[in-house]
């Protein structure tokens, strides 16, 4: 077994006295696609930021493989209107790329003709593609996406995730995604982690989708798209979730 790219042991984050993340043990192997799902406020984005080093853990630690190259696609970029920047220039941050390499990256991303356009004028889908193209230019070992398909319609999101799978196949990089876009995301993943402050359950998409813990968080009819967005309750320590999983959960709980 190769060493994990990034690993956490007992990672906890507190904010203003409240526990946002509670003793998270996590690791991702080279070439693996892992998706973290969880309701709003479950600490998904906080977890990504802790992995990036933007949030200091209150306990536990984050270990990166030496020389790990990260590619990060943020949920959105708060571009100030006062900052003029073209898509081509954005691709060259922080490492300059030649015009040829920039055009090639845009072409691969499916937006070949927008190099000279200001970032602020791009549509949501174009913007996401440029963000992804920029992250890939750094030849990452691990690609991290925070709600990568946010703002895309259903076909757009599906195409986006297919592209992620292609990227993994072409470059062999591992992918860590955070999403609430369950039905699309899950099929592309090797492993799904259901997060709600702590790791509720974890396993292959099929295992997690069948887990009562997961169903309790994301609704009963996990087949229908709409039901997935109906979060019946935020995490409460009840019989169906958390620390006293029944025997049928043992598989999912790993």
């Amino acid at each position, binding site marked *: 077994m190769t060493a994990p790219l990034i690993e956490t042991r007992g990672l906890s984050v507190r904010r203003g006295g409240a526990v946002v993340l509670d003793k998270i043990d996590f690791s991702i192997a080279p070439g693996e696609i892992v998706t973290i799902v969880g309701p709003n406020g479950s600490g998904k984005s906080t977890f990504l930021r802790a992995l990036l080093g933007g949030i200091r853990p209150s306990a536990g630690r984050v270990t990166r493989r030496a020389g790990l190259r990260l590619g990060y696609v*943020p949920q959105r970029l708060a*571009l100030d209107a*006062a900052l*003029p920047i073209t898509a081509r*220039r954005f691709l060259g941050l922080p490492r*300059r790329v030649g015009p040829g390499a920039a055009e090639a990256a845009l072409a691969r991303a499916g937006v070949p003709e927008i190099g000279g356009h200001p970032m602020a004028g791009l549509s949501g889908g174009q913007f996401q593609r440029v963000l992804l193209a920029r*992250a890939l230019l750094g030849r990452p070992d691990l690609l991290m996406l925070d709600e990568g398909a946010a703002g895309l319609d259903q076909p757009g999101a599906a195409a986006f995730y297919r592209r992620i799978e292609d990227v993994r196949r072409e470059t062999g990089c591992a992918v860590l995604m955070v999403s609430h876009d369950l039905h699309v995301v899950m099929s592309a993943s090797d492993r799904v982690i259901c997060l709600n402050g702590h790791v509720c359950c974890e396993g292959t998409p099929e295992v997690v989708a069948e887990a009562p813990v997961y169903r309790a968080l994301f609704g009963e009819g996990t087949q229908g798209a709409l039901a997935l967005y109906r979060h019946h309750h935020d995490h409460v320590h009840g019989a169906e979730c958390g620390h006293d999983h029944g025997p049928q959960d043992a598989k999912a709980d790993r």
Partner: protein
Amino acid sequence: MLDDFMTRAALAGIGTALAAAPLGCFVVWRRMAYFGDATAHAAILGVALSLALSLPIFAGALVVALSMATLVTALSGQGRGVDTVLGVLAHSALAFGLVGVSFLHGVRIDVMSFLFGDILSVSRGDLGVIWGGAALVLALIAWRWSALLTATLDPDLARADGIDPRREDLILTLALAIVVAVAIKVVGALLITAMLIIPAASARPFARTPEAMAVIAAALGMVAAFAGLRASYALDTPTGPTIVCAAAILFAGSSIYAAIRGRLGNG
């Protein structure tokens, strides 16, 4: 050539504008105008301390400006609204500085010259400090340009690329303190922020990339410095405020241009 006070004044104004404008772009992009004000106001306290301790004005202003800028950076990092604290710090530093200067008997100084600048009295030595400081600031910004820009766009994006955004914050803090210490003689503590943000804001409609905006801002800043100096000579007006007026007129022109272009583009 440097014997002529007008030549020295022009060189001082151009040197200050050259350093202030690119830095001012970051001040505009990061919405840190308050930061420039707090730092500049604190510099008056530095002036008072320098006079009391018989130190060079530049050194005292730099040290206090740097302390204030570091404090403000630390407070901003807390992520809370620090508006009130900043206001208290900035204006207290200014008030204590002014009161401190008034205690200094025997030193014949004109406080106004530090509040609004005294560019016509710039000496050869001052000119050396101004251009030295300006060169240092330009070198700092050029060296860290890509990292500063990435951290400005998104701190997490920068972290993923191995850039520590807090380090870039400190670089900007240092550059700002140097510009304040350099510019206090030229436009004065109260108007330094104007030389930072007005040329940068004026450059925005003409620029498609961050680099172009910095270069255009520097050019507009130098034009404002030169035009303001000539106008103050012709009209017998205070030089620092006249330079800022010239910058403001350029800004108005740039805004009108942007508005007309916007209408044509939409129409």
